[in-house]
């Protein structure tokens, strides 16, 4: 009974709008029902947008995941002072939240055409880092996304690395295992569900991102959220149901990710203290 206002609100502000997207994707431009909006998704230019979005998400999830894992392990493993670990988690907490417009600009100031690092490398080292390309492309977007992907990985994976108990390491070495065997038969199998779960989180995090890429490229990288945004910010005046179909496509991709994530999360929780 006491939860009625909450459910009413969530239904009104989350479920109904989500349902509106699902239904609207199948509506015609003027009236009636059609599958033409949705079937356009598998044709150009929209297919290209999905490919671009998925590629950026995959690259930044895998790279960010690998680097984040290495950083988290470097901070947690034996020998590293405790204060480094707490500093890394504090900083990751902040950096994982440093997205959107300010982040995009920080990179423009660093690696943009007149950025500090670009000019330094040109003048002092005579290096032309971009060689014809620039920050305002897909590669640039990927570099910038890593700034929030790596800290997110550190935050998500640190508890799992904590779960690798020192006793296991000692037990393995008492039984004659070397370092490689420990990782191959104990460490990685225990970490694997957490790592996969974290990678899915990172994928979704990047797939849903809009502000950073929009601001960095002025809307010239055609990832799906940017294309959807263009229908509402007046750059394209066209069928709003097509934007809904594009949103439906995102929803489907993310729903598949979530369906993979939940069982992995359950499996991973077993070892986390």
């Amino acid at each position, binding site marked *: 009974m006491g939860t009625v*206002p909450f459910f009413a609100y969530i239904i009104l502000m989350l479920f109904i709008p989500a349902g509106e997207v699902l239904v609207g994707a199948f509506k015609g431009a003027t009236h009636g029902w059609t599958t033409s909006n949705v079937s356009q998704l598998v044709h150009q230019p929209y297919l290209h947008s999905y490919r671009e979005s998925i590629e950026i998400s995959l690259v930044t999830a895998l790279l960010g995941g690998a680097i984040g894992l290495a950083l988290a392990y470097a901070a947690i493993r034996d020998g590293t002072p405790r204060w480094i670990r707490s500093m890394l988690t504090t900083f990751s907490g902040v950096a994982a939240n440093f997205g959107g417009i300010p982040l995009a*600009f920080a990179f423009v100031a660093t690696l943009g055409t007149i950025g500090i690092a670009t000019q330094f490398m040109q003048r002092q080292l005579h290096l032309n880092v971009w060689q014809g390309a620039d920050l305002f492309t897909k590669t640039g977007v990927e570099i910038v996304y890593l700034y929030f992907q790596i800290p997110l990985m550190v935050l998500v994976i640190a508890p799992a690395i904590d779960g690798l108990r020192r006793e296991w*390491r000692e037990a393995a070495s008492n039984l004659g295992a070397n370092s490689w065997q420990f990782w191959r038969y104990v460490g990685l199998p225990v970490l694997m569900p957490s790592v996969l779960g974290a990678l899915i989180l990172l994928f*979704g995090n990047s797939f849903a991102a809009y502000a950073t890429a929009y601001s960095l490229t002025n809307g010239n990288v055609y990832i799906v*959220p940017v294309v959807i945004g263009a229908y509402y910010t007046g750059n394209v005046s066209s069928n709003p149901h097509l934007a809904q179909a594009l949103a439906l496509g995102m929803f489907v991709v993310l729903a598949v990710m979530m369906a993979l994530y939940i069982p992995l999360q359950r499996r991973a929780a077993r070892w986390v203290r």
Partner: protein
Amino acid sequence: MTTRRFIAPSAAVWLLLGAAYFILPLVATFLFSLRQLQTGHCCTVASYTWVIHNGQFWSSLRLSVELALETIAVSLLLYVPTVYWVHLKVPKLRPVLAFMALIPFVVPPIVLVVGLLNFYKGTPIWFYAQPWGFLVAAYVVLAFPYMFFSLDSGFRAIDVHTLTEASQSLGASWGRTLFQVILPNIRAAALAGSFLTLAIVLGEFTIANLSQFHTFPIYLQYVNETQAYAAGAATLVSFGITWAAMLSLLFVGRKRGARASVVAGAR
């Protein structure tokens, strides 16, 4: 296997490289903001002067702060009693709420705003055309996962049943129990959720841009497009605000029962 006494060389290399990658853009933004408009050389504080004397900077920041406060107030009013009630009376619903807190992952802001814009198009102007209505309504949904995970861990750390029974056997009403007994005990959790919400709303661009309200991030983007060096100063101010919110969060997080998930943000 012996326990390592000093930091492993490979670990040190990783950590140094990581630190460099994360600190470089911040230092670069700072140096960039000190450049002179005419020559592009160091150093002047003209960009900061420009930002401080810019009326739109203050009006958009003020709007965003007010929206954040309204979002926090509505979220606390909506979510604190709900999580309290679920912990007290219907613990079976807890997994349902936890699952619903994952839904915003599947319905990200860009999808949510498309649905909201289409569904609420015909509604009264005081709702649809006002940031106080439309934007806050959407932001309360965005805040839900962060509020829920903070509050949930807060409520788990206290004995809801004993506190409620003690309060009621002394004659307190439901409202009084909630405000004078429960709320002080979950203060740290509520604060943690509030700081996260503050950080989200102050950085939120997607929904504001598609529904065309002129909040602080929209202003920031406008400056990015028009005034390069001033944008450096404005970006640092915005970053300082995020830092302050997140560090306050970590500060209250040290207290009992407020171990919130710190993955928010406006990508």
